């Protein structure tokens, strides 16, 4: 058993040492480039590799227990979701108006600040900690219940699965990563209004409860991240290890699994396309970034390729794991069942990287949010009484705070991958029952996760030119 782990272990170590020359070096302020990131990266990958070892040696019952929540009391059913959703609809309309009529400054207008800082960073991470708050504040379901038909006039064909959601996710990614000015207030107002309308139309035609979880990318990703929350309330409060709830979900169909892998691919590409490495690949001088407008074609191709490659790689890991575990024996899950079930273990990686990647931007932009809340129309008011306040990036200009931030980001990535390793193994235990087959099936995926840790940490440490 242990022998089977030595080969991947050695491969990893060899890779890590070879990697130090080719990778290394870093990002904003130049201070990250001065940190001993090679050492940190090695430690992080070692931690994840160690977790693979630990989970492999752990009795199956322990893993089951880890993912079983504590029941902590009876909860009342939630009321008022329709009203809060209606309030959210009104808020979205108000923000669109502010985007269209308000300040042109993307860092002074509450629409881009809300969408990109409060929602895309703050709320996504919060949802993963607290559970499905989106059910309360999504801007569709309340209005759909209020004015929509009792019975939806059309049926969304089952065979479409979650593919519409994959399409909307890719569309969102293109807008966020490729479009030259996604935070321009007036253009964002048009996009938000159009997207809201299109999704609301879908709710009216097919029913909100059918349409949103299958076609609306934020609903899908937020519900998935909610399954990582340690706390749940439905009939009872329950608290457990992050991710325990994912095991109570039905096995994701292939379209949903592809959604998850694509989500991870988009987040990773978002980090990759700022690096010196990537810029050199596409023929751009990393010291002279030409602006997004000049790179639309290349960034689009890169995004599509990154997502496709990750799907192929993950599929290969699942498939080869099944092959190692000898599919002729029973029980053996089908490829699509294994692909679906194991994709859930990528969720913590996607979330961890999301938090790490946007952490610094959040620390800066949340200050702009405070300023904008105090003076939403940039007319000189000071509603929150902030006084003479300037947004500061002082914490990025000397070594010690930069190091603290970097280690926080790295810690989140490492913890996320360790959780992913545990989740994947638990899924495998449930699929194979036999210990040896479980471990064999996990060899490729565990190696993938250790290498993905290396990749994620490298993205944090490497030089960035955009």
């Amino acid at each position, binding site marked *: 058993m242990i022998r089977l782990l030595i080969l991947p272990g050695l491969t990893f170590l060899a890779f890590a040492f070879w990697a130090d020359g080719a990778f*290394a*070096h*870093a*990002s*904003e*302020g*130049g*201070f*990250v*480039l*001065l940190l001993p990131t090679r050492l940190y990266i090695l430690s992080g990958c070692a931690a994840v590799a160690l977790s693979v070892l630990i989970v492999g040696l752990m009795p199956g019952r322990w893993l089951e227990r880890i993912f079983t929540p504590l029941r902590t009391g009876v909860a009342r059913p939630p009321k008022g979701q329709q009203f809060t959703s209606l309030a959210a609809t009104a808020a979205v309309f108000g923000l669109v108006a502010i985007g*269209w*009529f*308000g*300040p*042109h*400054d*993307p*860092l*002074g207008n509450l629409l881009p600040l809300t969408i990109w800082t409060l929602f895309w960073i703050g709320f996504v991470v919060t949802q993963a900690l607290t559970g499905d708050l989106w059910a309360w504040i999504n801007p569709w379901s309340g209005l759909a219940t209020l004015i929509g038909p009792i019975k939806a006039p059309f049926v969304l064909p089952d065979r479409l699965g979650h593919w519409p959601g994959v399409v909307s996710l890719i569309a969102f990614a293109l807008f966020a990563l490729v479009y*030259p*000015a996604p*935070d*321009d207030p*007036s253009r964002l107002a048009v996009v938000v209004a159009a997207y809201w309308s299109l999704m609301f139309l879908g709710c009216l035609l097919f029913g909100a409860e059918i349409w949103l979880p299958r076609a609306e990318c934020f609903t899908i990703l937020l519900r998935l991240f909610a399954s990582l929350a340690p706390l749940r309330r439905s009939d009872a409060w329950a608290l457990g290890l992050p991710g325990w709830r994912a095991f109570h979900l039905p096995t994701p169909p292939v379209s949903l699994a592809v959604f998850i892998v694509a989500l991870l691919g988009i987040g990773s590409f978002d980090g990759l396309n700022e690096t*010196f490495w990537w*810029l*050199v690949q596409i023929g751009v*001088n*990393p*010291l*002279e*970034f*030409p*602006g*997004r*407008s*000049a790179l639309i074609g290349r960034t689009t191709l890169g995004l599509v390729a990154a997502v496709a490659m990750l799907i192929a790689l993950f599929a290969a890991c699942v498939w080869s794991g099944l092959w190692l575990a000898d599919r002729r024996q029973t029980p053996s899950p089908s490829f699509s069942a294994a692909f679906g079930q194991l994709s859930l273990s990528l969720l913590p990686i996607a979330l961890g990287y999301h938090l790490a990647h946007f952490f610094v931007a959040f620390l800066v932009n949340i200050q702009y949010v405070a300023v904008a809340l105090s003076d939403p*129309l*940039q*007319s*000189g008011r000071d509603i929150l009484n902030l006084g*003479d*306040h*300037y*947004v*500061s*990036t*002082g*914490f990025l*200009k*000397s*070594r*010690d*705070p930069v190091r603290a931030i970097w280690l926080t980001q790295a810690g989140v990535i490492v913890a996320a991958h360790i959780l992913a390793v545990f989740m994947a193994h638990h899924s495998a235990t449930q699929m194979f029952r036999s210990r040896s087959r479980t471990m064999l099936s996990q060899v490729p995926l565990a190696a993938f996760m250790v290498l993905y840790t290396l990749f994620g940490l490298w993205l944090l440490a490497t*030089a*960035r*030119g*955009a």
Partner: protein
Amino acid sequence: MTKRDTSRPSLSRRGALKTLGATGLAAAALPGLSGFAQAQSSAPIRIGFQVHRTGIGAAYGRWYDRSTAAAVARINEMGGINGRPVEIVAEDDGTDPKRGAEVVEKFATQHECDIAFGTLFSHVVFGSAPRAGELKMPYFVVSEGHHVASGALNRYTLQPGITDVKSQVQAMAPFVADNLGKKVTMIFPDFAFGHDHRDYFTAAIEAQGGEVLAHIAIPPSETSFTKYFPQIPRETEVIYHVMVGPAVLTFVKEMGEFFGPNSPEIFGFIDSLEAVDMASPGLEFLEGSYFWEGNPRYAQANQSDHDKAYRAAVGVDDNGASVSDPKDVSTYSHMFGCWETLNIVKAGMEAADYQGPDDRTKLIEAVEAMSDMPHSLDHPQGAKRFNGKTHQTFGHQYISKVTDGKLVLAHTTSIEDTLYEDEVDYTTQAF
């Protein structure tokens, strides 16, 4: 977007100094949602501020924004321009040349700005200035690039508030030759920016009787430099480096490790260390090295009253950091350019008796007629000499030495040190 009333006729406003209401002062930062009545004689002067709010220039954009707001507040407090308040209409260009051209277009057509100003990054200036020329919009850039004076742009584009890199580099040679050494090795990134330094400095040091022993061109994607240092000739007395980007701290650290205590003199440009806290732990290897500064970041022993007042207005302390956060070091070597440019716009508009967009060419001619500008609160960085033919200003350059974690002024060049032959005469071009 609210449309402004365009039906106002142009009346003479000479001598019509009106009392400015609170709304007039507040208009200093209004981006297009004008709240006050469009009274003929107090209609604001609308200045389009093309700012790098996002993108790779955002760190500079933040400070350009602050110095601009401070300059406008002061101008309005003093009565505005020709009795009219100044209103800044800011638009983000994302540090993207194509968006820059769109922003210039918006200023001219949608926002009805009188002039546009504020662009920093060279490639954005290149992408935007042609459009300003086509739209006949006076375009005051604050960029340091040599592109204005090289003749590559147009008669509508001017750079009167900040000196250009050619004059900066050239002016370093006398001090380097007289105080640091005559045998120089140059280390620069292998693209246009580095080539400019290579070309300008080599010519200038040779004029001082020095020579460049080696030109070490480093690929822009490089992030580790130790392998290049053995190329430095043994007789090198001074290393002149202009590494930029995130790897600059690594560069200086590795160079310090390579030489140990027996290093040659080291001379660099503050550009990549703008906004880096010199006193940060881990930067000890900078100690003893020299830097060009556009404007001395630390208040010096002979600090002028103008510098003192300017710092107070922008909200910067004696270490060049934000008064609200002593760790938030400013881009002190560049942001004065916005302050000074706006004061020049004021002077130009007053000299031209600027009433409205019909007077744009008169404004440009008035600025072209300017030459010597004394050291004052309008020009806190130092005296300037503007060349109306090349549309480029010339001024004092500063050389500082890192001493105990601060930059201490070691030398101030004369303006003559910075001059070079005219390469264009925009005044012969038609508008």
